[in-house]
């Protein structure tokens, strides 16, 4: 039976709007009057929240022997930071500069750490070992700073306030090719320079550090992050652990200009205390002879990407919700086909594209609200419980938290619309449920939750499958100046949050367009 093609003139906009409102009302009535669907949505939402509460109440990460209540320091921008280095410093007033020549940067990787010390050591400098000049508001964790430095594998850099990073001269430093560095302060404005010969200078960058104290600490610093061997291969392979490293640099020809106070250098081990991932290495320190400083340090001055529990930790229930809404989304039309109700629906409203639009709107709105309730409940109740259990939570801005919660709800709604469309295309509920669940959840499962795929395949899958949408709940951004384990299993996705979500939306949009086309073309 083909729906009669209505030959009457196109109704006016007001009438059309009114008619669409009627359609929405019809679809809403159909949804709410199926008791099983309503119960399923409510139970899935409650389970999502309960699982969040359960995760929060049961997780006790932290120190051996109980919660350690380690607080991750935050930088001036509110992000989690690591702030550990060895510092040879002097007070500096509002104007002044320091120039130095770096003649070597070497490092040691300590593998097989035992309570007595490392089992093996290997002489190698990691790419983000840093040695150079720093100017900081103080030794307290997360202080404002600006620094110029040479690195193990990324040339000279200027970095400031943990997230800022600009490249200078490339190449490694050695006695044959030393690097000259200069850091100058003019009130709040800090400028960094580098040079290969001490005469021709290049400006790397200028930064403004607002509200910098009149007197700051400035001088030489050395630090060296953990060596991270990232292996993501198989369930048993897991991610490679880090091995502590330290770096040693030789500085000479130190020249001070301007308002330097005091007349002696002080050695300071800046660190986050015994619970921080970088304990002060036994080898950290400095000695000074004939104008040459040899400084050894360990740690990093950078955003922290490894430590805490992300705020989306208690959100595992999302998957219960996804399964529930995908089943309902697929049934929303296929059940009508099975019972023959679709013929009544299409006879009542012969403009089929509009029927589909009304269905998608109603389903999307219901699942968005359910997803919002579930995600908000799980995160807003679960995260404080996690914190109370001594888990360090990655500090995030309110905007990020809103993005994670609302994004999760949008993800759920988009999955439901995708399932609805596939259901219309296939007119077979079980097939639609299987295809959509497999396309959304299986790639995530194989790459993030239960990683069995090699890293290259995992990256590829999370770019091209609808599972890319999970990127919307990535909490911590990836920083190119930190060598971290940026694997999906650690909560990092190959696409940016909104780009990943756009991939899922594209799938849903294409499926909806095809569904609309087929619904108009086919007999009901």
């Amino acid at each position, binding site marked *: 039976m083909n729906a009669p093609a209505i030959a009457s003139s196109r109704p006016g906009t007001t009438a059309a709007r009114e008619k669409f409102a009627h359609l929405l009302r019809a679809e809403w009535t159909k949804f709410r009057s199926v008791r*099983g669907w309503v119960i399923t949505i409510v139970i899935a939402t409650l389970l999502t929240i309960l*699982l969040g509460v359960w*995760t929060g109440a*049961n*997780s*006790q*990460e932290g120190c051996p022997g109980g919660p350690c209540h380690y607080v991750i320091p935050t930088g001036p921008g509110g992000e989690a930071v690591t702030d550990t280095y060895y510092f040879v410093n002097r007070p500096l007033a509002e104007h002044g500069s320091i120039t130095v020549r770096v003649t070597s940067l070497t490092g040691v990787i300590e593998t097989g750490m035992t309570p007595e010390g490392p089992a093996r050591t290997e002489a190698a400098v990691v790419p983000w070992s840093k040695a150079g000049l720093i100017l900081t508001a103080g030794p307290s964790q997360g202080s404002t700073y600006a620094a110029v430095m040479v690195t193990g594998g990324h040339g000279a850099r200027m970095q400031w306030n943990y997230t800022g990073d600009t490249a200078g001269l490339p190449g490694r430093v050695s006695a044959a090719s030393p690097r000259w560095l200069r850091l100058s302060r003019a009130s709040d404005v800090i400028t960094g320079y580098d040079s290969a010969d001490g005469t021709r200078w290049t400006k790397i960058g200028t930064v403004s550090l607002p509200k910098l104290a009149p007197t700051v600490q400035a001088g030489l610093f050395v630090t060296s992050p953990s060596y991270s061997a990232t*292996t993501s*291969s*198989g*369930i*048993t*392979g897991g991610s490679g652990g880090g091995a502590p490293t330290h770096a040693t640099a030789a500085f000479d020809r130190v020249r001070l200009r301007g308002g330097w106070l005091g007349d002696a250098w002080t050695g300071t081990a800046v660190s986050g205390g015994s619970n921080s991932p970088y304990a002060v290495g036994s080898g950290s320190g400095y000695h000074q002879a004939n104008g040459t400083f040899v400084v050894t340090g360990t740690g990093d001055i950078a955003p922290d990407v490894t430590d805490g*529990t992300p705020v989306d*930790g*208690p*959100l*595992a229930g999302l*998957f*219960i919700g996804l*399964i*529930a809404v*995908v*089943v309902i989304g*697929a*049934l929303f039309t*296929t059940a009508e086909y*099975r019972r023959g109700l679709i013929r009544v629906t299409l006879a009542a409203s012969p403009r089929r594209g509009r029927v589909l639009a009304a269905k998608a709107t109603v389903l999307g709105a219901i699942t968005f609200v359910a997803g919002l309730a579930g995600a908000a409940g799980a995160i807003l109740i679960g995260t404080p419980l*996690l914190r109370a259990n001594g*888990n360090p939570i990655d500090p995030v801005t309110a905007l990020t938290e809103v993005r994670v919660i609302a994004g999760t709800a949008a993800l759920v709604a988009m999955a439901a619309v995708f399932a609805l469309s596939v259901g219309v295309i296939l007119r077979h*509920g*079980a*097939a*639609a*449920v*299987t295809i959509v*669940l*497999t396309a959304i*959840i*299986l790639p*995530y*499962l*194989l790459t*993030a*939750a*239960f990683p*069995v*795929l*090699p890293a*290259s*395949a995992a990256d*590829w899958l999370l770019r091209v499958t609808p599972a890319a949408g999970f990127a919307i709940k990535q909490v911590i951004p990836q920083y190119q100046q930190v060598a971290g384990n940026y694997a999906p*299993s650690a909560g990092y996705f190959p696409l940016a949050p909104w780009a990943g979500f756009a991939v899922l939306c594209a799938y849903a949009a294409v499926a909806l367009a095809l569904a609309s086309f087929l619904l108009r073309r086919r007999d009901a």
Partner: protein
Amino acid sequence: MRRALHAEWTKMRTLASTFWLLLAAAALTVAVSAAAAAAARCPSGDCALDPAKISLTGIYLGQAVVAVMAVMVISGEYGTGMIRLTLTATPGRLSVLAAKAAVITCLILATGAVAVITSLLAGRLILPGHGIGPSHGYPALSAADGPVLRAAVGSVLYLALIALLSLGAAAALREAAAAIGAVLGLLYLFPIVAAVSGSAGLARHLQQIGPMTAGLAIQATTSLSSLPISPWVGLGVVGAWAAGALLLGGLALRLRDV
């Protein structure tokens, strides 16, 4: 019982979807397995890789098709009303369920065997070129190797048990979409919840009771000590899930009106 079996076989044989679903299950299994093998690399020569497990990655996808197929064996009849005719012809309802279970098990065992053997052959051809072969110290993918044989036979049995689990779920829930949602939820949720549970002990327990995580332990041929559960015991866990689902489905079928 023989007549019930014959009836079920006729129904299965004459459905066009049977052939296509079996083909899809085998083809998807082989395709994903081969793609995983093609993506695996070990330049350094000492990666913690398990060639048999990589070559059988496709089971993760193939099981979904197997689950749909098994669900449709019962839910398809509820969808069309055929179930009333079936139960009129064979009033012994448990006989009907047993006949359906026997037919689907045989089909899945045959298809699974083809898919698993082809997947392993693909792995055997592809992996040595990527630094993961017998010359690099990894076990050869041949039936002569005990653990590889266990992984192969176990994967086929795993698929059959997933089919029985799905059949039981479908008999209990009737509605195809709901049954497949329940089965996939059962398979996928355990590893996801385990990953976020935040406690290693709890995660291990969840992996021990989850049908997919426990059952696919059978695919491991290296570093068995780090598995959450030993291979055959893991397969036993899936067997217990399948038995439980069939029991529930059988009870529902027996006690309920059609």
